[in-house]
């Protein structure tokens, strides 16, 4: 079976050459998404993608793109309130999946008496605090360490666009231009558009602006960049075209 070709493209069940697995005495090896550890010492990919090995962080994972979100802890997601229960809200994070729960007290300075009243349909930006295959995911809109919202909470105005999970991951990268090859948002900003975005790891991006026209342009630029697998040069062309059409 193929172990290590020039590119590390892996398929489920491929054997990974032990020589490429990073080994240090000080840090434990961290396995990211797409890998499965079969005790005692086998590491097997479960999805097809590119195997990335980071010897500095002593971690490895499979980089791939998909459409169905599987919650995992500390992910930032955009959800929609489905209904209210006694102590928590039910939040829809991806279609045809069971709802996540958002406790009423997981908001900034919320008490039993003062808590945000959210109607069904309300969008929220939240962090996943509990992701377990046997239980529904649990969310929070407040940082449990600082007690501050830190940008999380209900989102008003604007519009949500669906994107692929790989694209959402690229948008959330700290250096999305250098690491993710994404410049489209910066380019739109340079053109003088005023807008704000919130990216959910569950394949949603929210765009807000005073003018609906700008919301549509930014959303369309993001969707076209995602669906057309556009590189940096193509993103520049796309932004130019959209700006010309707007005028």
């Amino acid at each position, binding site marked *: *079976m*193929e172990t290590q070709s020039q*590119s590390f*493209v892996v*398929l*489920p*069940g*491929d054997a990974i050459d032990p020589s490429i697995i990073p080994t240090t005495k000080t840090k434990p090896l961290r396995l990211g998404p*797409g890998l*499965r550890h079969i005790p005692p010492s086998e590491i*097997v990919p*479960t*999805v*097809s*993608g*590119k195997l990335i090995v980071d010897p500095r962080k002593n971690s490895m994972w499979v*980089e*791939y*793109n*998909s*459409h*169905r979100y*599987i919650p995992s802890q500390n992910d930032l997601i955009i959800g929609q309130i489905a209904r209210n229960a006694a102590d928590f809200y039910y939040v829809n994070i991806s279609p*045809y*999946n*069971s709802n996540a729960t958002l406790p009423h007290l997981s908001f900034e300075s919320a008490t039993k008496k003062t808590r945000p009243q959210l109607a069904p349909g309300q969008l929220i930006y939240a962090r996943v605090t509990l992701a377990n*295959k*046997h239980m529904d995911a649990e969310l929070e809109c407040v940082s449990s360490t600082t007690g501050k919202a830190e940008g999380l909470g209900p989102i008003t105005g604007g519009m949500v666009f669906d994107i692929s999970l*790989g694209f959402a991951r*690229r948008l959330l990268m700290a250096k999305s231009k250098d690491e*993710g*090859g*994404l410049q489209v948002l910066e380019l739109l900003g340079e053109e003088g558009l005023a807008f704000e975005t919130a990216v959910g790891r569950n394949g949603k991006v929210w765009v807000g602006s005073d003018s609906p026209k700008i919301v549509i342009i930014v959303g369309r630029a993001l969707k076209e960049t995602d*669906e057309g*697998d556009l*590189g940096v040069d193509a993103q520049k062309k796309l932004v130019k075209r959209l700006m010309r059409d707007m005028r």
Partner: protein
Amino acid sequence: MTANTAPEAALGVLPKADGSAKYSHAGYTITASVNGPLEAQRKDEHPNEAHVDVIVRPAAGVGATRERHLESVLQSSLSQIILVKNFPRGLIQIVLQIEETPENDYVNTKLVQASVNFPIMPALFQTCILALLSAAVPMRATATASVVAIVLEGEKKKTVVDPTPKQLQTAQSVHVLAFTSHDELLLAESEGDFTVQEWDEIYETAKGICCRPQTRKSGAEMVLDEADVAGQADMRQFIRSTMEGKVAADLHWK
């Protein structure tokens, strides 16, 4: 259409599905969509593992007993390679739409309800695997399948891979075998009269197609290798190269 055309596949053909694939080989064209893991209906819910739901739709008309049989065979073998334990109470839904078959599907197909349709199995199976890979559903391994028939030629018996519809009508027995990428037998379905020796021969033939070693041979060796299984595509290599194309397109920014 000849039986031994090279396989072709396209991934992600359906934009709204989580994963999809269109596959054509040996006169069959099939489109599959995969959605999942989803929330299972109460009746399908299993506390410890995901339910794999396979739906086969014929090229014309509505599915009947034959399609239900194909579904049950596919369902049980796919449950073995999908990591169903990762998604308790979940559902992985696979819909297969048959688009083209070598026979004329508009006549004679539903005459004999009990008759099974083995030659379409490898195509259905391969399409499922490609669509599951496209949807990034976690799997233990990939798998490949092939159909082999024993055909009587005069007095001599001959094993034929990917038999034509005509050969099938006169075949003594027809077998479908699937192997995982770890060379394990995943599925073995047979129909007709055959001996144990014949089955062993079939097993070796099918294994030769499904489990060809991945080593890239050079020069004369490769020519020899191509010659002894003339016209047979290396399914495992085909799946790998298709996926390599998809991964390269998805991760063009990396």
